[in-house]
């Protein structure tokens, strides 16, 4: 079973924007139906960009421990914005998988043993549950790359092999 098949998923803007730019935001809503959680900092970023993701539970940081974690991470990784920090915080304190396409966010999450997946993982999961065919998943990925998603050629090639061979 794919690791994204169970549990909550805390998304940050990077992955939502990548799916939005190829017109596939509904895929996220569908795949994680009832399991999507989002920091309200990410929610604000989406509002500012006029983006909407339905069926999401928005979560606020509220207690001292959460704020301390947020501030420590912010100081250690000044390249992260409130959205990514919030998404990592939500993943940590609400036991969710972090879904991000951001390298900085991924590194930070790994430091705290938070399970992380990116857009590639989401597409693989979509193939696994039969929501997309392997060919469709590759097409979506290529569209994302043409819209600015930054994924190494090596990872793309590995992804291509995995999803096309799984047919």
């Amino acid at each position, binding site marked *: 079973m794919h690791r994204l098949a169970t549990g909550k998923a805390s998304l*940050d*803007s*990077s992955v939502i*924007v*990548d799916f*939005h*730019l190829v017109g596939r935001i509904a895929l996220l809503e569908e795949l994680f139906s009832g399991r999507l959680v989002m*920091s*309200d*900092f*990410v929610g*604000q*970023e*989406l509002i*500012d*960009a*006029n*983006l909407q993701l339905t069926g999401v539970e*928005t979560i*606020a*940081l*509220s*207690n*001292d421990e959460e*704020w*301390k974690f*947020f*501030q420590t991470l*912010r100081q250690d990784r*000044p*390249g*992260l*914005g*409130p*959205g*990514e920090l*919030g998404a990592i915080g939500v993943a940590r304190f609400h036991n969710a998988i972090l879904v991000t396409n*951001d*390298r*900085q*966010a991924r590194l930070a999450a790994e430091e705290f043993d938070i399970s992380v997946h990116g857009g590639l993982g989401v597409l693989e999961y979509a193939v696994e549950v039969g929501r997309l065919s392997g060919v469709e998943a590759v097409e979506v990925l290529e569209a994302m790359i043409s*819209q*600015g998603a*930054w994924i190494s050629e090596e990872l793309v090639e590995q992804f291509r092999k995995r999803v096309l061979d799984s047919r």
Partner: protein
Amino acid sequence: MNNVIGHNIKKARELARISQERLAEMLDISRATLSAIENGHIAIDSGKLLTAARALGRPVSDFFREEDEALALLYRAALEEAAPPPARSAFERFCKAYRELEEIVGVADTQLPPPDYSASPGAESRPDQFAAQVAASERQRLGFGEHDPIINVFQLLEEQGVRIFRYPLEHDNVFGLSAFSLKYGPCILLNSVNTIERQIFSLAHEYGHLLMHRRFYQSAEPASGLEKEHSMEIMANKFAANFLVPAAGLRDVFWRDIGQKDIGLQDLVFLKRYFKVSAQVVLRRLRDVGLVQKQRADDLAAELEKRAPEKQEFVPLNEDVLRDWSLVSRFKHLARKAALEGMVSLGKLAELMNRNVVDAKRQVQEWRKEVTFA
């Protein structure tokens, strides 16, 4: 942590001149709860913090800064408020973002701030002469000597560590604003609604203030206060005129290209393009330097007024200066480098550039294409 956020909310609320009652109402909490938050006794939740950030016109990151007060951005007292709170807020946000980018990329504090002439003898007793001298020595220091025109004052001053922020202010009679801090260095806001000639002059004018009046940058907001403000304005104008149109350079061009025959409007066009200033500034300098008699200057001023109604420029300069500066803008370079080298996340880039995440993503894609297909 509660202390830091609470203290920053209080500071921002006071600067925005919003009462505790009013902000509490906006946050849908009691005044006593807000007071407890501001004093660090209880934690605010992130949803309320976002509402507070919106109400106070600040990016949410501002509330996490554990910053020494001494490093805050300080203004010079002015006769009247020069720019409304939203413009100041955008300005401060830009200055902080600029510094943050420098720190992220690893190029913070790589240059000294421009010299501080504010304690020099002569500043008080002979202000006009002093301003002209500062302009001359600054030109010398920057390698322009007594003659050369400054082709791109935006680029030049940014190279000196000045953070330049262009922002459309509703009132075009507000030209610019400057601030200084040990951490952020010299910062200048220009009203982008004004003509390019006006922006160039305002930039030099504010730079003059930063050089000659630095010790007066002591106020957390540009509130009224100093009686001597008027003479400081005159000094800054004098500095700008001498800095942009040096007397020796003007004489050179005048005798070489215009000669002794009666000066006409076409000569003003030539000179304004040469020195990149307005026709009015050229005319004023020609009078100051004694190259044009008062009667002829008055006639030309009347001609200019007829041809270019108030607030319009006679034969406007094109905006090449801005375009060229944009290509080498240090802020843009740092943002591009940080984004393309993965030093900042999408959310952070959006925050630093004051854009939304989708626009920030598109910007990154454009930058990437530039590099890939160059």
